């Protein structure tokens, strides 16, 4: 019974809205909303290759943190050894970060 009501409710609500609202077919309504400013170009524009570089760098640094989760779960048992190992791991990641930084891959030209 409940499931019928659940299915019915959105259908009725949408239909009612459709029937009751005033029909004003304007182009303006279909245009993408740009915070009230007139849109200047098509949304499907080519964007800077810089985005890809940032995205690629993000993927690497993001996924590498996966190793932190299992480490955090059994941190108690690993004790000092685990802590130092993780420092080494993070250290290598940070070296990578310094390299990326110094090479200027993070600069927005």
């Amino acid at each position, binding site marked *: 019974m409940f499931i019928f009501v659940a299915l019915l409710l959105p259908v009725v609500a949408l239909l009612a809205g459709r029937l009751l609202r005033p029909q004003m077919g304007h182009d303006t309504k279909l245009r993408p909303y740009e915070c009230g400013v007139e849109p200047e170009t098509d949304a499907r524009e080519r964007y800077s290759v810089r985005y890809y570089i940032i995205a690629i760098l993000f993927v690497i640094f993001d996924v590498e943190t996966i190793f932190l989760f299992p480490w955090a779960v059994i941190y108690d*048992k*690993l*004790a000092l*050894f*685990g802590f130092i190992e993780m420092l080494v791991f993070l250290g*290598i990641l940070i*070296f*990578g970060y*310094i*390299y990326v930084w*110094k*090479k200027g891959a993070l600069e927005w030209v």
Partner: protein
Amino acid sequence: MPTDLHYLAILPEIITAATGIAIMLLDPFTAPQHKGRLGWLGVAGLLAAGVAGAAQSGRTMTAFGGMVQLDSYSVFFRWLFFGVSIGTILISLQYLKREGVHHSEFYALVLFATTGMSFMAASVDLILMFIGLETVAISTYVLAGFKRSDPRSNESAVKYFILGAFSTAVLLYGIAFLYGQTGSTRFDRVAEALSAQGPSAFFLVGLALLLVGFGFKVAMAPFHVWTPDVYEGAPSPVTAFLAVGPKAAGFAALVRVLYSALPDMENHWGDVLGLVAVLTMTVGNVAAITQSNIKRLLAYSSVAHAGYLLVGLVARNELGISAVLYYAVVYALMNLGAFTVVVIWSGAGETRVHLSDYAGIGFRYPFLTGCLSLFLLSLIGIPATGGFMGKVFLFAAAVQSHHVGLVVIAVLNSAVSAYYYLRIIVIMYMQEPAAQVPSVEIPVPAAVALVLAALGTLLTGLYPSALLDLASRSVLAVR
């Protein structure tokens, strides 16, 4: 917490990886004209790693939860890989400057690839083997495309990447089946489970996918099709490295997997590899005959040589594996040497890689052409060269295990290969030179690499026993 954390067991790998990281960190602080110093730092790191490896020779231990095994086998391959990487750096020092791509990442990537190769030879666990393989693969994808603004280098990298990633995925799928059937990724446990259960369908699927994956990595026919394109487009020192290092590492890991993890299925993989060996040799040699670009020719020749190496695997006896190790070293020497000549002679922008560009330079550049002739003769397997002794050992092992037909085909193949190797020598010494023979400068580091490779090729041919002893002591760890 595992109890067998013997960091000493992986000290050479730690040194190479740390040197690679150090090079990357120092790179932004190094003036462009001093990038060569970082190359020398790489050589120093590799030498230090070699010494660290030597200090451990004769010891046997497993470390890190049974993932790494330090034994004579891993020490043998470590030396080979360190040597190959030193050679690669020596020939690229001048090359990178000449081609205008002198970035020190090149040296770092070579060191990372070396770390991966070294782990491939030392791993006794499928996980570590996979990670080692990927470390090599990812570093070499970048190396192949190192000339970023050269479309040919791009294309080489894309092709290598697509086929390499595909083969890795297939290999991993096979590994998953092996794990599912045995409940462990350690070679010894896989072997135990296999002998307890007998070869089931899952084992066969796993083995087949594993062989396909390795087939791509070491360029066995019919999975060799990427080789000529990738080798032609990649920067020449990288081609030299690819033809020697990752291929030897692939064989190192393959031998370990087959003999340590899947010995009870040797009838299955032995027969398959026998067929593949015949196919690989024949395809490589026949295709090489028609090539006019020396890099493509050497690419097909490297396919053919993978076929010869497989003969040693098919033999399935101790001499067979020692012969594989022996031939891996000899092959590394002569191929690195031949590619060094190609690197030097190709000139800026690698314009002179056509066989006709070698016409008549024999007496103009006696050092270069003399060395190249020696390497080519060794690749054919002419007596008094390392290539000859290597083939003798490989074929003797196959005869010992009654694979006479295979040996006959292999010898016939060597005869075919003589045609295209000798053709280069004929072109160099007997054809009329072009109107203007270009002048090339032989950079000192590359000349050193050339001399060392030539000496090695001769010494292994004249005094084969020392290296063979070392190789046969090394295989005891595997069998």
